[in-house]
C-alpha cells in the first residue's frame, strides 16, 4: 500500500479525488439553487441533491482518475516492476482500489462532516456516509475492472461510460428485472425511499435496501475476482 499511497500523492490523484468530491457537493447545492430555484436549502435537500449528483454524474466525474491510476502502469510499462516486488494481478488491483477507496472515503467523510456541521444536524450523517461510500466503491470496482482489461485509458473510460449508460437504460426499461445491475440509479426503488427517509428526519432505510447494496457490491467483487483470475497473463502482456 505504501507505494500506491506515495504514487497517489505524487500523481495528484488524491487531490483530484478531493476536488471531485467537493465538486459533487457544490453541484448538489447549485442544482438546488440554480435549477430547482430553491430559496431555502435544507440539510436533507442538500444531501439528497449531492447524492443525486453522485449517482447520476459520478461515473463521468470519477472515471478519468480511476482509469488513470490503473492504466498509467500499463502505459509506463511498470508491470514487470510490480512482478519484481512480488505483486500478482490480484494484489496489484486490490491495493490500487484500496487506496482509491480509502482516499475517496476520507474526502466523503470530510465533505459530509462539513455539511452536517454547517446545518448543525447529524441525523443522517452515517446513512449518507454509507451511501456515498457505496456509490464511489461501485465506480471504483466497475471502472477499475474495465481498466485492468484495457491498456488504453480512453478505451477504459469509453467502455465504462457505455456500460453505465446501458445499465441506466435497462433499469429504466424494467426496474424489477434489471434493478440489481444499478441499484443507485434514480429510476430504481432506492432513490425515492431515500428521499422519503431524508424528509422524515430520523428514519432509516429498510434493511432490505442495505442488503441489496451489500449484495450488489459483493457481486461486483465476485465478477471482478473472476475477471482477474483470467487476466494473469494478459496483465503481464499488456504491461510490456
Amino acid at each position: 500500500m505504501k507505494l500506491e499511497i506515495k504514487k497517489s500523492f505524487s500523481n495528484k490523484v488524491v487531490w483530484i479525488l478531493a476536488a471531485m468530491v467537493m465538486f459533487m457537493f457544490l453541484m448538489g447545492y447549485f442544482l438546488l439553487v440554480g435549477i430547482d430555484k430553491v430559496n431555502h436549502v435544507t440539510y436533507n435537500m442538500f444531501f439528497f441533491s449531492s447524492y443525486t449528483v453522485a449517482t447520476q454524474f459520478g461515473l463521468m466525474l470519477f472515471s478519468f482518475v480511476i482509469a488513470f491510476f490503473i492504466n498509467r502502469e500499463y502505459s509506463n510499462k511498470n508491470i514487470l516492476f510490480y512482478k519484481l516486488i512480488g505483486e500478482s494481478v490480484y494484489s496489484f488491483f486490490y491495493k490500487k482500489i484500496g487506496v482509491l477507496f480509502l482516499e475517496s472515503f476520507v474526502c466523503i467523510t470530510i465533505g459530509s462532516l462539513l455539511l452536517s456541521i454547517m446545518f448543525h444536524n447529524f441525523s443522517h450523517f452515517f446513512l449518507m456516509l454509507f451511501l456515498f461510500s457505496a456509490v464511489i466503491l461501485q465506480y471504483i470496482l466497475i471502472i477499475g475492472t474495465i481498466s485492468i482489461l484495457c491498456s488504453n485509458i480512453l478505451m477504459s473510460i469509453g467502455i465504462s461510460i457505455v456500460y453505465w449508460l446501458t445499465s441506466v437504460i435497462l433499469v429504466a426499461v424494467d426496474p424489477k428485472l434489471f434493478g440489481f445491475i444499478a441499484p443507485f440509479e434514480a429510476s430504481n426503488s432506492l432513490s425515492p425511499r431515500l428521499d422519503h427517509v431524508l424528509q422524515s428526519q430520523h428514519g432509516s432505510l429498510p434493511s432490505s435496501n442495505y442488503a441489496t447494496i451489500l449484495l450488489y457490491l459483493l457481486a461486483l467483487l465476485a465478477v471482478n475476482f473472476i475477471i482477474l483470475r483470467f487476466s494473469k497473463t494478459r496483465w503481464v502482456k499488456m504491461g510490456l
Partner: protein
Amino acid sequence: MNIENYTLKVKGKTLLKETDLAFSTGVISHIVGKNGVGKSQFAKDLLLNTSKQMLPDVQENVCLISSASNIPHDVSKDFLLRFLRDTFNEQMISRMEQLLNLSNIDGKILIKHLSDGQKQKLKLLSFLLEDKAIIVLDEITNSLDKKTIMEIHQFLNEYIEEHPEKIIINITHELSDLKAIAGDYYLLHEQRIVPFASAEQLIDVYIHEA
C-alpha cells in the same frame, strides 16, 4: 541454455525459423540485428513463452530489462531504495549502488525528472535484485550519453565477473557494446541467430548487410 529448432512467429510473421540457440553462463552473449528482425520479440518470448518452445526453467528464470520494463517514475530514488530494502537483500543493494555509482543521483527528486542514464542505472539495480539466472538486456544503452554508456559497460563487466553462474543476453544496436564487453557474438540475420568467432567478424557482416 540450449534451445533447438526454435521458431518464433508474431502476428503471422515468422521472425526466427528453426534456429538453434545456445547461450553460456559467465559470459555476455551479444545479439545484434537490424531494426524489425525480431530481437525484442525474442527477448519478450523468453519471458512470455508465446512460442511455446521455452522450457519452464527458462521462462521462470528470466529477468527482462528493456524499454518494456520500467521502474515507477513517480517516486524518488530514496523512496525506491527504501522500498526495495524492505523486499531484497540489503548487502546486494549496497553492492549494486556501489557498482552503478548511484551516490551522485539526487535522492529527493522524482525519478521522472532524472536523466535517461540515471533512470537506466536505477532500473538495472532494481531488476537485477530479482537475482534470476538468465538476464536479458534489450537496448539498454540506447540513446544514452557516452559517459553513462561507459559506466554501464564497466558495470556489466564487473557484474558478470562477480556472477559467473548467470547467463546474460545483451540485445543491442550499439556496436561499441561489442568492443567494450567481451563475450559471445551473435547476429540475428535471415530468421536465424548466427554465432561469430569475434566482434570484428560480426561487425563486418552486420554493416555490409543488405
